[in-house]
């Protein structure tokens, strides 16, 4: 296996080091930083917006570009969190807790540099872990059967919902089901029967995943900026522009170094869990670091602590890399962004999962190696450019929002050249906006939509193999194990909540007694 890994790594290095691919990583990091920096736009939108650009490229180059965009968008999100306290997505909220106060204290350059170094540490450590773990898991996963895949997909979708937070599990599950429902639109691949097409030729091939991703994320996020009078795009403090110093002293490096390493390890482990993602990674790293800090240091948290800034940044980046493990090895996306990337892989004609490790090693290893290259580029090339990028935050929303809408609509139109898709996008955008206003999450919907077709295929195949019996759910020990994990993930929060309620009730009884 180690020989295979070494040759794979070399193949990944040779794939990534092609001048075209180096240029794509650089371009991806650059574009990702620019898009991720815009308030309200996170990595999902950045990746979705860049997918149309990749359609003319070969799959390995396309994925290399998207990996660069992903990393760049995370970095860009941190920049807007630090400079204007406007996190592009939930994963960078923890960065703003200490990053923004530090910037307000007149040290925006230092805050950005600490974030960049911590991100680099997180990215580097997690890429090494990814290189070791991914091939091991992929080689085990080659023995998976349809039943295991079906169980794994259920696990992935359940896990995404289980991490939805207090009171959000049922809503996330319902959104997964809605995504699965949308995936059934079009011609059934096995029987050739049309489902929910209403006689429309445009719906015969089903709903385009890119269109759904753009409508539910890019368009709704742009409209949210308008609806909520989000003036953050106008609020860049002039003092924050034009800073030159990005220096971090040796003493400060010593302070943030161990925090970044610890948070990277924790972030990676959390990222590997399907559904946990970067948000949990960054918040848990922040929490861990605050708990480990001395009482005097603890008081600085939330007021511009360097450790408080480094920890979520490292955790966020490491978790983002970790979420590639289930994507590359099992074909199960661990987060919304990796779900969009999975959709892109399917569109390139690559079957995600353990076979990808064998059939398309150049894509598998190319993505891993380009992630590292992306980290290096972000540190060496993007960081010095950040003071100039930051001027983008001064673009008034009058101009920014229509441009985001235009690029989103264009992204879909220039792929399909069908004006019907633009109208469909608007319909989905309005529906997604309504659901968002009613506090329903969109990422589970996208995950359900992307996995829907694969899930139905695997379920059908498993039933066929097991003579139309659902015993496939427990006959193989592996399938049984995955299903038990699903049940645990699904019911653990409920049991914990019940136990805590009982505990509280007993506590109240004691007090009242």
């Amino acid at each position, binding site marked *: 296996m180690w020989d295979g890994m070494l040759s794979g790594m070399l193949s990944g290095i040779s794939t990534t080091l092609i001048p075209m691919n180096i240029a794509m990583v650089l371009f991806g990091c650059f574009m990702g930083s620019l898009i991720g920096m815009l308030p309200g736009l996170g990595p999902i939108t950045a990746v979705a917006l860049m997918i149309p650009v990749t359609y003319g490229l070969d799959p390995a180059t396309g994925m290399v570009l998207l990996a660069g965009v992903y990393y760049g968008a995370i970095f860009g999100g941190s920049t807007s969190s630090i400079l204007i306290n406007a996190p592009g997505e939930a994963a960078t909220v923890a960065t703003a807790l200490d990053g923004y106060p530090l910037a307000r204290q007149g040290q925006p350059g230092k805050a950005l540099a600490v974030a960049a170094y911590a991100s680099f540490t997180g990215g580097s450590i997690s890429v090494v872990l990814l290189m070791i773990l991914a091939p091991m898991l992929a080689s085990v996963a080659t023995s998976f059967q349809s039943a295991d895949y079906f169980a794994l997909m259920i696990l992935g979708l359940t896990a995404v919902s289980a991490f939805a937070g207090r009171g959000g599990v049922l809503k996330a599950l319902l959104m997964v*089901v809605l995504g699965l*429902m949308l995936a059934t639109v079009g011609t059934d691949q096995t029987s050739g029967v049309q*489902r*929910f097409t209403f006689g429309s030729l445009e719906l015969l091939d089903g709903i385009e995943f890119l269109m759904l991703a753009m409508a539910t994320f890019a368009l709704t996020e742009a409209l949210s900026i308008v609806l909520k009078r989000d003036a953050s795009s106008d609020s860049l403090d002039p003092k924050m522009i034009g800073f030159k110093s990005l220096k971090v002293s040796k003493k400060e490096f010593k302070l943030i170094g161990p925090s970044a390493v610890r948070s990277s390890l924790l972030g990676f482990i959390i990222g590997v869990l399907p559904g946990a993602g970067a948000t949990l990674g960054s918040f848990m790293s922040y929490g861990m670091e605050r708990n480990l800090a001395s009482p005097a240091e603890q008081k600085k948290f939330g007021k511009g602590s360097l450790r408080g800034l480094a920890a979520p940044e490292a955790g966020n980046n490491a978790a983002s890399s970790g979420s590639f493990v289930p994507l590359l090895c099992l074909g199960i996306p661990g987060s919304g962004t990796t779900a969009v990337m999975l959709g892109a892989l399917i569109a390139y004609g690559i079957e995600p999962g353990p076979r990808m490790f064998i059939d398309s090693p150049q894509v598998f290893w190319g993505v891993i190696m380009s992630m590292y290259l992306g980290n290096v580029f972000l540190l060496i090339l993007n960081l010095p450019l950040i003071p100039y990028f930051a001027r983008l935050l001064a673009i008034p929303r009058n101009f920014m929002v229509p441009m985001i809408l235009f690029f989103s*609509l264009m992204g879909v139109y220039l792929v399909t050249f069908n004006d019907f898709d633009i109208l469909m996008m608007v319909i989905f955008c309005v529906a997604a906006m309504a659901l968002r206003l009613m506090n329903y999450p969109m990422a589970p919907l996208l995950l359900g939509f992307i996995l829907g077709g694969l899930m139905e295929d695997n379920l059908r195949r498993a039933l066929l193999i097991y003579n139309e019996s659902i015993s496939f759910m427990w006959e193989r020990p592996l399938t049984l194990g995955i299903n038990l994990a699903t049940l645990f993930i699904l019911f653990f929060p409920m049991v914990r909540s019940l136990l805590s309620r009982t505990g509280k009730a007993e506590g109240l009884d004691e007090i009242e007694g």
Partner: protein
Amino acid sequence: MAREKIGALLLLTFSIAYGVLALRIPLSFLAQQEFFTARTMPYSLAVLGIILSLLILILPTADPKGKHTLKQETRGMEWNKAILLVVAMVFYGLTMKWLGFILASILFLMAGFYILGERRLKKMALIAIPLVILLWFVMSTLLGVYIAPGEVFYRLGVL
């Protein structure tokens, strides 16, 4: 009514409608004898959707954010501008075929800028026109993607 309950009610209606439509998926005689048909997955999803939305409707709202009513949540929002932008997007979709990419895009961008409060026509044009032409140039000349001109140009005899 809590906003997530309204959402559950809408999704319950959607799930029921989806289930009813699933009944109308055509199946051949042979397919009807099979265990797993094109209807199986939609049926299961409709049932799951109904159960989950009913659970959200029946159980107390645990998420503090979900307890807000829609009125509370949407108070002070700039509905007019958002609706006008949606209308502009619909027009963009409808006019794309007739006006072609360049003209429809420039008009859409300028309409968007205007809706959001920009009134300097020169500035609007100086941003929209070069941006669209640059994108068209990159797509059609550098990437070799054919972008059809608008029907109106053929009708007028310009092309």
